C-alpha cells in the first residue's frame, strides 16, 4: 500500500469521524459511576414505594441517555439516523402499556377464580 493512499484516506476519514476531547468521556464515565452508586444506594437504604421506583427509573434513564448520546455518539449523528433509531422505541413503550393492562387483568382474574378458598 502506497503512502499517498494512506494519507488520502486519513484526510478523507477526518471529515466523517467522531473526534471529541478525552475529557468528555472521562466526565461521562464518572457520571455513570455516580449514577450507578445512587441506584445501588436506593436498594441499600431499602427505600420503598413511589420514591424507590421513581428514583430507579430516573437513574436508569439518565445512564441510558448518557451512554447513547455520548459513548455511542448519537448526539452528533445525522438527525435522520437518530430519529430512525429513537422513534421506533415508542413502539416498545406502547407494548409495555398494553402488557401492563393485560397483566393486571390476568392478576385480577387469578384472584377472583383461582385463589384457594379461605
Amino acid at each position, binding site marked *: 500500500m502506497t503512502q499517498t493512499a494512506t494519507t488520502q484516506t486519513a484526510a478523507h476519514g477526518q471529515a466523517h469521524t467522531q473526534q471529541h476531547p478525552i475529557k468528555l468521556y472521562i466526565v461521562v464515565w464518572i457520571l455513570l459511576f455516580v449514577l450507578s452508586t445512587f441506584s445501588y444506594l436506593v436498594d441499600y437504604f*431499602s427505600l420503598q414505594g413511589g420514591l424507590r421506583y421513581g428514583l430507579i427509573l430516573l437513574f436508569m434513564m439518565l445512564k441510558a441517555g448518557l451512554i447513547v448520546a455520548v*459513548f455511542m455518539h448519537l448526539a452528533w449523528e445525522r438527525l435522520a439516523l437518530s430519529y430512525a433509531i429513537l422513534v*421506533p422505541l415508542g413502539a416498545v413503550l406502547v407494548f409495555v402499556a398494553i402488557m401492563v393492562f393485560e397483566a393486571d387483568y390476568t392478576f385480577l382474574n387469578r384472584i377472583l377464580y383461582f385463589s384457594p378458598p379461605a
Partner: protein
Amino acid sequence: MVESTLPRASAQPLGPTGLRSIAADLSSDQRAFKNVSWGKAMMWIFLLSDTFVFSCFLISYMTARISTTVPWPNPSEVFSLEIAGTEFPLLLIAIMTFILISSSGTMAMAVNFGYRRDRAKTAVLMLVTAVLGATFVGMQAFEWTKLISEGVRPWENPWGAAQFGSTFFMITGFHGTHVTFGVIFLLIIARKVWRGDFDTERRGFFTSRKGRYEAVEIMGLYWHFVDLVWVFIFALFYLW
C-alpha cells in the same frame, strides 16, 4: 483538539435543518443516511432489532411478575453476598455493574485513540475492555452457580414465584451471551488494530474490504449497547 460540533457542521454545510432535514434525507436519492457509512448504519439497525429482542424479554418478565399471585422473591435478599458475617445486598451485582461501565469507558477511549491513529493505545484499551468483559462473564457464572446450588431452577425456586428462575436465566443468559460474543469480537478487532490493518488498509479475510479505523467505532457501538442493556436489567430485574 477538534471542536466537537465540527463533524455536523462540515457534513451539513447547506440545506434544511431539523425535521425538514430528515424529510429531505429520507426522500433523497440512493441513500437516506447521508455521511453515515453503511457499516455504522447496519450496526445501528442491528442494535435496534436487538433492542426489541431484549424489550420482549423484559416485557414478558414484567407481565409474569405483575400477573402472578405468588409473592416474587426479593432480589435484594436473593442476590446478597455475605462477607465476614455481614450481608451486603446486591454486592456482586453492583460490582458487575461497575466493571461493565468501566469497560464502556475504556472502549470509548479506544474509539477516540483509533481516530487519532494511535495504534498501540487503541489495541491496549480494547484488550482492557475485553478483560473487563470476560471478568463480568466470570462473575455471572459465579452468580449462576450460587443460585443453582441454592435450588433455583427455571421451573421452581425456594422463595416464591416460579417464573423468577425462568426469567432470570433467560434474561441474564442472553445478556451474558452478548457479552461473550462482544469479547470475541473485541479480540478480533484488537488483533487487526495491533497488526496495523487499518493503517495499511489491509483487506478483510471475509469481506475483502479495506480496513478502516471506523471498525473500532462500530465495535464500540456493540459494546456500549451491551452495557446499555445491563443498565435496564440492573434497574428492572435486580433493583425493582
